[in-house]
């Protein structure tokens, strides 16, 4: 019972925070609300006894990822985000009708579904006997999930290479925009060129 109440509290706080993120025009406020959402999601993870996920949620999302968001905000130097023209005005009304229908559909269908437990014998006690949540996760990760684990490192590598390829300052690239600063029109032509 207490778990249910706590779940409702943290889940609704997370949803409210997320709503705040997409409705704030001040992007820094949006960012802080995002941290708030992440922390509440971490609490929900704790409730499902996914302690490791909860720690990661705080450490990686509320910590590291948010740093990146903050950098992007400072990059773009957006103080206030004002939508200059309302695009897709009619779609907004379609969304108001369709989104609740989809939500209702998912709720009805999922509530009526039969769920299969992942495996008999996986109880909190059994996990505690094996040395706790994180240890069990580690054993699974390094035995059954070996291949996805190693591929995760490839994804991280691709991310690293990508960031450097897209964002590193280059010297000696003749197409680089700073070499065209003398001639605005030529620079613009290069930027807009078909590739």
């Amino acid at each position: 019972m207490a778990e249910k109440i706590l779940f409702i509290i943290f889940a609704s706080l997370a949803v409210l925070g997320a709503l705040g993120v997409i409705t704030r025009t001040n992007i820094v406020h949006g960012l802080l609300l995002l941290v708030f959402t992440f922390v509440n999601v971490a609490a929900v993870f704790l409730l499902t006894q996914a302690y490791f996920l909860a720690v990661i949620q705080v450490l990686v999302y509320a910590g590291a990822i948010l740093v990146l968001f903050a950098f992007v905000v400072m990059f773009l130097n957006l103080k206030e985000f004002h939508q200059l023209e309302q695009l897709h005005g009619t779609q907004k009304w379609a969304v108001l009708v369709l989104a609740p229908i989809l939500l209702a559909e998912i709720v009805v269908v999922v509530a009526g579904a039969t769920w299969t437990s992942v495996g008999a014998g996986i109880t909190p006690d059994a996990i505690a006997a094996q040395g706790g949540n994180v240890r069990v996760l580690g054993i699974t990760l390094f035995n059954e999930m070996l291949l996805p684990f190693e591929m995760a490192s490839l994804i991280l590598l691709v991310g690293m290479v990508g960031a450097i390829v897209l964002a590193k300052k280059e010297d000696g690239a003749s197409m680089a925009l700073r070499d065209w600063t003398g001639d605005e029109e030529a620079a613009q032509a290069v930027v807009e060129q078909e590739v």
Partner: protein
Amino acid sequence: MINPTVDLVIQFGLMFAIGAVLALALMAVSHRLAPTSRNPNKGQPYECGVLPQEDSRLPFNVHFYLVAVLFVLFDLEAVFMYPWALALRSIGLLGLVEMLIFIFILLVGYFYAWKKGVLEWE
């Protein structure tokens, strides 16, 4: 007896609530207790200072961003080490080799970033 999970979540919630309240309270206290005298001249630069001409939020050097991305990626790598360290005893040598391969692949990225001069400040 209270459920341990519920107990944990209550502790977690309390920690963040106390953190938030404490931060707000400290700000409020210093705001109330500090002697204030409001005057437009107080906001001006002192004597020989130059009047601010533009916004304090300046566009950012992209280099900071790259370093931040590298930080996040290696942070994620470190995250994988917690379950690894706890499980190492039962996964044995295989686990060691797996982690070495994982680290090696990221090391390739590190080497690449180093040689590309991402870690240097001009």
